[in-house]
């Protein structure tokens, strides 16, 4: 059997590039994932427990290190620069100028930032919507800008940077900023807040990404129909990303998309609660705390809500049994448990578990079929032991049980 090599070999220079189909790379990634699992399974085999195996342990350690490196190298294969997407978006700016009658100066920063090809392929549509939103709603018309002492030409910055294991993509404009009053009025009309509720500015900023939410009174050809934001939300959910919005009235709006660099492996802390295993991405964890009983408060007036004092401030305790609306007649007291403190955009929450087991690079599997409706989860993690853990999404846990 012979397969046609897809590699052009007529350029034998050391730095020559190869064209390889993404299917082949995906296959390699899958195999590396399985390899890593099998190695862990072998090394952690219960049959080895209690045996004196000095040279085996050393060899196993070396093997695990190599597998880790192979994993990193394989992940690296799929990384491309975000510039490809940015260039496509730049071409759209002229069209936006024509449609809005505004002149726009697009500044690109950090175009050489590396990102998973699978992510990069999905970024164009959501980013286009964010850009359109900035061009349409963010930037003022030339006259208004001049009257406010700004350059007639509006500026939009499209930037990317790697921060830890996350890529941050920013779309910033120097336009009018978000009008909190108008957003709040609209949000109340849509029933997102009660008439007397006054949400934090950070919470209010995020409302513009709620499905079907659009404050633009004039629906333009470009945006204002609230559909684009749904695309953005859906894509970000699938890419395990987060959106943050920052805005100053009169100065402009910054929208940041935080996306993991690689989708295949995830650095997680593995936990046990009852008979179940959970995994939490290391980057989402602020700290792991064993609470003292004097730091715990139970508020009967708030249907038994529990709070935990952490460095002087109170953090809301989110029990998974409550979140998933399960039998809660047999809850252990918090002082017997370990709590994982999540960082979320709406503040910290503490999730109590029975035991913290390990830190592992896990292989992620999407939740499909019967598991598709499991809330506040990124997917399943296959652990080195062959066990399966549910990967928790702190952001959605903090938003409460309502899906």
């Amino acid at each position, binding site marked *: 059997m012979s397969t046609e090599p897809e590699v052009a070999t007529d350029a034998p220079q050391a730095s020559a590039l190869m064209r390889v189909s993404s299917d082949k790379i995906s296959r390699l990634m899958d195999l590396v*994932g399985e390899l890593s699992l099998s190695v862990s399974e072998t090394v952690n085999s219960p049959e080895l427990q209690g045996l004196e195996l000095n040279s085996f342990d050393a060899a196993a350690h070396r093997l695990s290190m190599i597998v880790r490196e192979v994993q990193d190298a394989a992940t690296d294969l799929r990384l491309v620069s975000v510039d490809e997407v940015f260039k496509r978006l730049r071409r759209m700016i002229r069209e936006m100028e024509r449609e809005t009658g505004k002149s726009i100066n697009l500044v690109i920063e950090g175009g050489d930032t590396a990102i998973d090809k699978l992510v990069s392929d999905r970024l164009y549509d959501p980013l286009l919507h964010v850009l359109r939103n900035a061009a349409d709603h963010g930037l003022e018309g030339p006259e208004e800008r001049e009257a406010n002492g700004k350059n007639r030409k509006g500026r939009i910055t499209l930037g990317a940077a790697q921060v830890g294991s996350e890529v941050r993509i920013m779309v910033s404009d120097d336009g009018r900023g978000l009008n909190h009053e108008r957003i709040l009025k609209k949000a109340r009309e849509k029933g997102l807040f009660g008439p007397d509720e006054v949400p934090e500015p950070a919470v209010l900023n995020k409302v513009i990404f709620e499905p079907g939410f659009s404050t633009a009174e004039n629906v333009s050809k470009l945006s204002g129909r609230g559909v684009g934001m749904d695309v953005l939300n859906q894509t970000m959910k699938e890419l395990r990303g987060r959106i943050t919005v920052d805005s100053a009235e009169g100065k402009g709006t910054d929208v940041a998309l935080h996306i993991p660099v690689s989708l295949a492996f995830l650095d997680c802390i593995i936990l046990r609660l009852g008979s*179940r295993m959970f995994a939490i991405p290391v980057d989402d964890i602020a700290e792991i705390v064993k609470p003292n009983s004097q730091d715990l408060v139970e508020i009967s007036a708030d249907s038994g809500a529990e709070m935990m004092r952490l460095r002087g401030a109170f953090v809301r305790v989110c029990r*998974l049994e409550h979140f*998933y609306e399960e039998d809660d007649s047999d809850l252990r007291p918090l002082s017997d448990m370990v709590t994982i403190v999540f960082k979320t955009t709406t503040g910290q929450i503490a999730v109590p578990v029975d035991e913290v087991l390990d830190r592992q690079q896990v292989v992620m*599997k999407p939740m499909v079929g*019967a598991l598709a*409706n499991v809330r506040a989860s990124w997917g399943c993690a*296959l652990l080195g032991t062959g*066990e*399966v853990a549910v990967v928790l999404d702190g952001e959605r846990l903090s938003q409460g049980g309502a899906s």
Partner: protein
Amino acid sequence: MNEAVAREAANEADEVRTVEDDNIDDMYLTFKVGDEDYGVVISVVTEIVGMQRIMGIPDVPAYIKGVINLRGKVIPLMDVRLRFNMPEREYDERTVVIVLDVGEAPMGLIVDRVSEVLEIPASQIDRTNNGPANSRRSVVSGLGRIDERVAILLDENLLVSDSDVSLAVEVDA
């Protein structure tokens, strides 16, 4: 590999497949739940495995007992007894998992035991879900007559969906 041999082997495999293709839609894997015989069409069955360690998952219906890791694939397991509101029973050495692939998603059925693969031609199947009072689609697609016995044939799409199946079982129980 010797190409001629390979080609011959491939041809042979093709022939076997053609024979199977002729009647694979009439082939059913039958299994026992309690005293009842059930059947699913063989084309959606990917494999049958013994009971293994189940890992619990939150936020799923009670009849989804959890998941297993089958060679790197995460497969949710449905306890067919619980799905049909039958009394739960402890798993024993004859308990097996029938792995189905329905609509791109895998699902394992926990059943008391598997029986055999039977050919049940359409002429021997009585459709049950055309009664006027039965407005909901039933998870039972038909009753297959095999000599003296009856196999309750299941609609695999409805079986793995979330819809309530209690009615279907009352009709047939």
